[in-house]
């Protein structure tokens, strides 16, 4: 409140608005260094490590997308495996027609975005829980339709052709770099989207949907855009998965466990923040690697942790970091600085992640 009175009293002075409380140039430099170091990994570490990291890239990309859906657009989709599967199948279909899977990957991702438009139309009228199960039914339907075509393997699937001429070491390294590229693009796109107009509309919807509508925010369009972007991201991750496994099997690529993985990573890391999915994916990978000799126990443990976090630490692990250190690596909100104020005092706008209420 004091900001308002200050402004009217000293209107000559300007209110400063910045993206972050602190200078974030170091974040950009840091991110660049991290990406460069990661890009050098195939020269430094064993190929076993890069193969595991490709799994991490896939989960991180998926988590980013699910975070956009659930954390920002309020769309809890339990059917994102439909785009993981479609991405894999688009890569496979292109490869069967002679396109290299690496070249086919971007086409497959965009194809998923195009497919998302009619699929969105089918489920867009439903809200919250009904939307969740409807996307699940939709994923099952897409799988059943795909299984009807015996030319792409029917119910059993096909190995991915087009990569047999590769030297295994080169293939592993190339897959890794493509995976890194997909993840960096997914993170950058999320960041830029949320900084832009769409981010503003989504924040408004998150805070008060009715008020946002009455202010002229095109809520339906914003949600559709998020659904399409998430489809592109999940499609890219699905295509990447097909390349890394060299095999496409309908029951595996359309498995609801894909959604479980992305959702758990986001919930544990922190819903509604860009940093959360990164932290959540790290937790996911550590648990998965530690418990990998115990079959599906890692999913049971992850599920229990995610339930506990959803109930007791709703802003996730990153929320805890943020509360104690007040750090934002990817600032997408605004800070207001009262006229003449210096130092650390400012008012955060749309700073908090997660949904209120």
């Amino acid at each position, binding site marked *: 409140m004091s900001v308002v009175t200050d402004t009217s009293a000293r209107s000559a002075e300007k209110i400063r608005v910045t993206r972050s409380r602190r200078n974030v140039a170091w974040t950009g430099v840091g991110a660049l260094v991290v990406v460069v170091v990661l890009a050098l990994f195939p020269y430094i570490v064993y190929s076993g490590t890069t193969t595991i990291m490709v799994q991490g890239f896939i989960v991180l990309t998926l988590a980013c997308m699910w975070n956009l859906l659930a954390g920002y657009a309020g769309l809890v989709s339990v059917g994102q495996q439909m785009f993981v599967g479609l991405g894999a199948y688009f890569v496979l279909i292109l490869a069967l027609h002679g396109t290299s899977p690496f070249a086919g990957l971007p086409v497959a991702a965009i194809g998923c975005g195009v497919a998302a438009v009619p699929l969105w139309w089918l489920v867009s009228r439903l809200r919250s829980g009904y939307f969740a199960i*409807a996307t699940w039914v*939709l994923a*099952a339907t897409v799988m059943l339709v795909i299984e009807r075509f015996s030319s792409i393997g029917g*119910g059993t699937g096909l190995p991915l052709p087009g990569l047999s001429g590769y030297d295994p070491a080169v293939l592993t390294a190339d897959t890794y770099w493509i995976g890194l590229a997909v993840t960096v693009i997914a993170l950058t796109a999320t960041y830029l989207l949320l900084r832009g107009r769409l981010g503003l509309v989504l924040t408004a919807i998150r805070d008060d949907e009715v008020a946002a509508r009455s202010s002229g925010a095109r809520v339906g369009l914003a949600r559709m855009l998020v659904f399409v972007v998430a489809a592109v991201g999940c499609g890219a991750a699905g295509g990447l998965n097909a390349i890394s496994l060299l095999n496409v099997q309908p029951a595996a690529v359309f498995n609801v466990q894909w959604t479980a993985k992305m959702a758990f990573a986001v919930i544990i890391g922190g819903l509604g923040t860009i940093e959360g999915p990164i932290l959540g994916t790290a937790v996911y990978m550590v648990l998965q690697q530690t418990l990998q000799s115990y079959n599906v126990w890692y999913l049971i443990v992850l599920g*229990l942790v*995610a339930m506990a976090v959803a*109930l007791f630490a709703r802003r996730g692990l990153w929320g805890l970091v943020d509360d104690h250190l007040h750090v934002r690596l990817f600032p997408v909100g605004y800070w207001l600085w009262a006229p003449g104020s210096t130092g650390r005092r400012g008012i955060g706008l749309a700073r908090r992640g997660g949904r209120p209420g």
Partner: protein
Amino acid sequence: MVWVNDIIQGILTGGLYALFACGLSLMFGVMKVVNLAHGDLAVIGGYVALGVITVTHIPVLWSFVIVVPVMAVLGYVLQRTVIQAALDRSVLTTLMVTFGLSVVIENALLEFVSANSQSLGVGNAIITRSFSIGSQIQIAYLLVLIFAVAVAVLLGLQYFLSRSKYGRMIRAVADDREAAQLSGVDYRHVFGIAAAIAFGTVALAGIAYGMYSQFAPTTGTDTILLFAFAAVVIGGLGSLWGTLLGGVVLGVAQQIGAQINISDEVLAGYIVFLAVLVLRPQGLTSRRAQS
């Protein structure tokens, strides 16, 4: 004649789907909870029945005497602890928590009881016998029994909700929680009762499915939850008798789909579901537009 047979079989299977669906519908109607673990809980009911039959050697048809109360208690406890805690936070939390529960149950079952399919009462005379009408139509006693149970459950629920003291409380809480609370109703307890009833029907659904077909840990999501949801949407959200109509439409669509191409049974059901979603999103019975 083949088509008549399909329609009869479809209608009878619809009873099973209504049994899947009424618990889901009840929990949404009263608590606004979409329980994503619904199907996995039915599968747990199936495994509990299997355990009870193995240990006590009671006839499979009577296993519900033990399984239904066990599941009802589980329902009350889950509602009063985890689900209520999630409800107190937000709808989003409820979805995430029940989804987590679903994944945890499914994978825990995979660990503890293996992925092998199980079924209840193999070789039991009532379960395997059938009677014929003409030369082409064969009707299994079991399907008739399941249909009758579904109708009885729906009648019982309707009677309970409209006549009994707890039914009145449940309706009051569902309509206006604050007003009911002001009149001295502990809504948490009422939610628990509603969840117990819903879980009781879920137990029946699990047993019925175990006798009708085979179940495995993944059956809970890829069959029971999705079919239950399709039946609820086709029939009309929030309508108890709508779930029977929805189940019947789904069952008939699947039978006709299977007649056209044996592998299209499930797909045909989903296509009808999607058609209803697009053409009549309020469902076949409900006149009220969906909020």
